[in-house]
């Protein structure tokens, strides 16, 4: 643990600290050609350069001292910070539902990580209670850290592990499940869990936060309260995503795990149900259904866990001028399933035809989804579409591209018989393909036009 004395420092900066015997968390007096600096030496983020030493000065601010200006350095004291979210026992309340929180990483409740300079999650019920005491009024909480990965590192192995853990918890009689998750691939995981955990008798709610809980305006606390509320009290026993409705701290939305998508890189209200309406709105007091039909909560424990996934599945985002060798390369590398994300109603150009034929001949399963995100694949309308179907590409209805990818992976994890694959792919599971698109399913407002401006002024967006 010797290196811990100089957390994060490397190269020249590390040499200098060692030379003057000044440690991280040591109080230092540093003379430089720019004058004197006094403060506590802080750890340095791993990716920052080796030319500066970080000090927390007495007023609480951090400053960096350029090592090339340092003429003398002295450690005058030492005090290690004890960074900890206050941990209090999560109180047990009679008559409140029992909810399990699975941790996967992500920023639901978090603290600073000096190594990366980013935030790392806080997680135990005690920590969560310390940070969001209101949770104790909603449910009796237990937690389990299944693994800790960043959202972008979630993948098939994690989906399977989660599904199995959920299955066990349901058998043990839990009344609701919450999964804390980074937001980037939240909708991939929600789709995967929809396929892997079927016929659940209790709500399974995925939740994240767009602003980490180390900031006062974080959406984490409210999202967490909403998610616990949904898991413990809602009648909707489906895999759902629970995130902000508007960017204001007002209410959350419950989205079906197969119809939801992250639509903005940084907004709080980034998750949207596509091609349909969300399941319900939710606040701390009530859940207001939007959709009338859903799988209701049950007393039995008859859940089916199907933890299958083939990693020989890929996606191909089509662009004008795409060359056939891109598709050939995928096939040559052994991919068995390809979700094509086509233009318009589901098209790619003629130049790709030979490659498509070769792929089909090799038994590759190809499904067409849309770059437009909204709407159905309609391959009968133009000749191109008919040609593509004739070559073996199957239109995937209004399945979202990411959902189609997850589903194809899940299906190919079970069979590679073309007819069985097609049957499984096109049989809707929890509305991954819907029969109809409601008129209010597609809503992308156009800022600037008078009626939208009026709406925005009146309604908190």
């Amino acid at each position, binding site marked *: 643990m010797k290196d811990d004395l100089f957390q994060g420092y490397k190269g020249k900066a590390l040499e200098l600290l060692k030379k003057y015997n000044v440690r991280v968390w040591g109080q230092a007096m540093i003379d430089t050609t720019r004058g004197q600096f006094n403060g506590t030496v802080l750890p340095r983020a791993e990716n920052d350069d080796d030319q500066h030493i970080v000090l927390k000065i007495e007023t*609480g*601010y951090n400053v*960096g001292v*350029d090592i090339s200006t340092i003429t003398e350095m002295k450690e005058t004291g030492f005090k290690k910070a004890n960074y900890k979210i206050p941990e209090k026992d999560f109180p047990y309340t009679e008559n409140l539902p029992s909810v399990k929180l699975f941790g996967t990483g992500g920023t639901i409740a978090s603290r600073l990580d000096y190594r990366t300079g980013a935030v790392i999650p806080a997680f135990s019920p005690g920590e969560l209670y310390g940070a969001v005491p209101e949770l104790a009024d909603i449910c009796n909480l237990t937690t389990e850290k299944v693994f800790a990965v960043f959202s972008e590192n979630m993948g098939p192995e994690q989906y399977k592990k989660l599904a199995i853990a959920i299955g066990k918890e349901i058998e043990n009689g839990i009344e609701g499940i919450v999964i804390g998750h980074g937001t980037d691939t939240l909708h991939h995981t929600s789709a995967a869990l929809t396929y892997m955990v079927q016929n659940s008798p209790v709500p399974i709610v995925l939740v994240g936060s767009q602003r980490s809980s180390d*900031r*006062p305006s974080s959406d984490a606390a409210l999202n967490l309260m909403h998610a616990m509320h949904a898991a413990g009290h809602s009648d909707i026993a489906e895999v759902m995503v629970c995130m902000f409705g508007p960017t204001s701290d007002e209410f959350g939305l419950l989205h079906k795990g197969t119809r939801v998508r992250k639509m903005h890189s*940084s907004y709080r209200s980034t998750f949207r149900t596509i091609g349909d309406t969300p399941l319900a709105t939710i606040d701390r007091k009530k859940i207001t259904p939007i959709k009338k039909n859903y799988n209701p909560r049950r007393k039995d424990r008859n859940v089916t866990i199907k933890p299958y996934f083939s990693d020989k599945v890929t996606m191909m985002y089509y662009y004008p001028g795409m060359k056939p060798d891109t598709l050939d390369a995928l096939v040559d590398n052994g991919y068995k399933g390809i979700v094509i994300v086509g233009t318009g109603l589901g098209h790619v150009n003629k130049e790709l035809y030979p490659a498509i034929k070769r792929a089909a001949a090799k038994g590759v399963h190809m499904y067409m989804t849309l770059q437009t995100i909204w709407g159905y694949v309609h391959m009968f309308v133009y000749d191109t579409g008919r040609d593509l179907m004739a070559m073996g590409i199957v239109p995937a209805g209004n399945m979202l591209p990411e959902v189609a990818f997850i589903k194809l992976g899940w299906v190919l994890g079970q069979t590679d018989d073309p007819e069985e694959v097609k049957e499984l792919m096109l049989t809707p599971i929890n509305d991954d393909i819907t029969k109809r698109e409601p008129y209010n399913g597609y809503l992308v407002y156009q800022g600037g036009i008078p009626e939208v401006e009026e709406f925005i002024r009146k309604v908190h967006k």
Partner: protein
Amino acid sequence: MSKSIDSRKNYEKTKKEIGYVARKDATQKDYDRIGFMSGLEVHQQLNTKEKLFCRCPAGVFHENDDYDAEVIRHMRPTLSELGEYDGTALMEFKTRKEIIYKINNETACTYEVDDTPPFKIDKEALEIAIEISLLSKLNIVGEVHITRKQYLDGSIPTGFQRTAIIGVEGEIQLKNKKIRLIQLSLEEDSCREISDIGHTRVYKTDRLGMPLIETVTYPEFVNPDEVMEGCNYIRFLNRSTDKVRTGIGAGRQDVNVSCKGGTRVEIKGVAHTKWIPELTHNECFRQWALLNVRKKLKESVSNSKKWKISSKEITCAEIGLKNKIVIEAENNGEKVVAVNLPGFNGILSHFTQPGKIFLDEISDRLKVIACIEKPNIASFEALENKLSKSESEKLAEVLKAKEKDAQFIFWGPEDDIKTALETIEERCIMAFEGVPNETRKSFADGSTIFERVLPGADRMYPDTDSAPIPLQNSYIESLKKDIPMDVIDRMEQMKKWGIPEDTFTYLLKNNLVPLIERINKELKVDAKFLGTILGHRLKYIEGHYNKSVDFDYKIIYALFKYLKSQKLDFGIAREMLPILYQHPKMEFESVLTSLKFKKRNKEELTAPIGFLKEKFKETGKKKTKENEINWVMGELRKQAVGNLDLKDLRKQIENN
């Protein structure tokens, strides 16, 4: 039954007890007696095109109802980097405020409402901040680290201000002493508050995110005037770069004050430097008074550790209360609560500030922390909303009060009562300690009210959204080349020129000394004359005419250049300035025409002197030499202006 107190008399008595003196009568001796100590945090907006962390325009402002959208947020305290919760944060959380932001698309993007991470720091702002840091003799940091400073009042939608230290440990030179500087930081400005009523606070986001610097001094000022001198100095220094904003709200300061045995109290957002002396004077005496309260409480309360308030919900009828405000509140469903403070008899009406008593300290906190609008409190010991003798006797009876106790009632919405009672007890317990650490809001009359608990270093957190910015030596050296002369040297320069001292503030505030220097050097116009015409005449014009948006001080150089080229007397600038101030685009020649100016040579002008002297005899005026000269001057003055120095003209009349 508690001892009955004449609140007005007690106010006067305690005021005398602590040796309060009005500021106009106060001497350094008085300030030394109570241990006056003060430091400054001077804020100055920088004149950049764009905001600090996003590319919205800076310096565009809107009316309150000129907005496109509203966003609602609640703030929740988070841990500091060192793992502590900040006191202010917890207080603000207690208030349960709903914060509404009114957003105008022109001046706010997704960054302002915290829906997008920060963009790169504005380079222009960073350079100005470094320049001012160099002027302030600060040690420039090697790497700028963006820090988050928590503000849970909602004034910033993220819940924190992004701020960064540019330099530490500097100094400024006042007339008689040096004041050391702790640091200078570059930060984003906050929202402007529209309203704050009950549990709803409304802000607009136009000012939010504009670059601002904060210069912090050590608490080394020992009297109110010195604080003002220091504040002026820092503001002049900032202005001397010509790169900072001017106008209302562009410069604001927080003033820290303590007395001997007191605590650091921060008077926030002082809009005008001239308010500083009265505010610091009163704050220092307020603390002195609170120490007297502590002394008295020590005598009347034997065990302060176990001290508790007692309270009871009552009805107006129960104590025969006639106060219309309270009765109306009760009719509106608000609760009325009677409170007994053991051992506090005579404390509630103890002097704190001119016109204010200890009870106000409680009332202020009820408004801010429990969100109960004022008036919210009534007592026999109050100066306003006084309970009658019979009312307070009933009150004491209901509360089973003892002789040394004090009572009051407060009223407010049911949901706020719990917080209110906690707040009252908390404030009273603080009285045993002396002076609470707090920030206070200032008023033009020199009084202050409680604003919030004083935040500590615990509210700082590194900004995980932005990378540190290294400042290389070469970069700093290149900025050093452009920095202006020290303010203290400017003052010396003006003295040397013989410019009257009463113009200094105006000339420095508007950074006009470099202009004087340039005109003096290049056009050979007398600097003393220039100092007077700018420091007196221009100042007068500013106060009496409407300024055109196009008016720029640069025009004054052009004016003198023109006068010189036309061989006109510079004195006519006095008459031309008001016109140029209102119509800066007017040609100088047209200005002269509008003044009915005609070019004449000395001979032409002085020719009629003899004739006029004859004419003077026909006037009814007393025939003294002085009157004669003045009368002739009066007749010739108008034509002479611009053609002849008036002093010269006078000489001509005298000698004719």
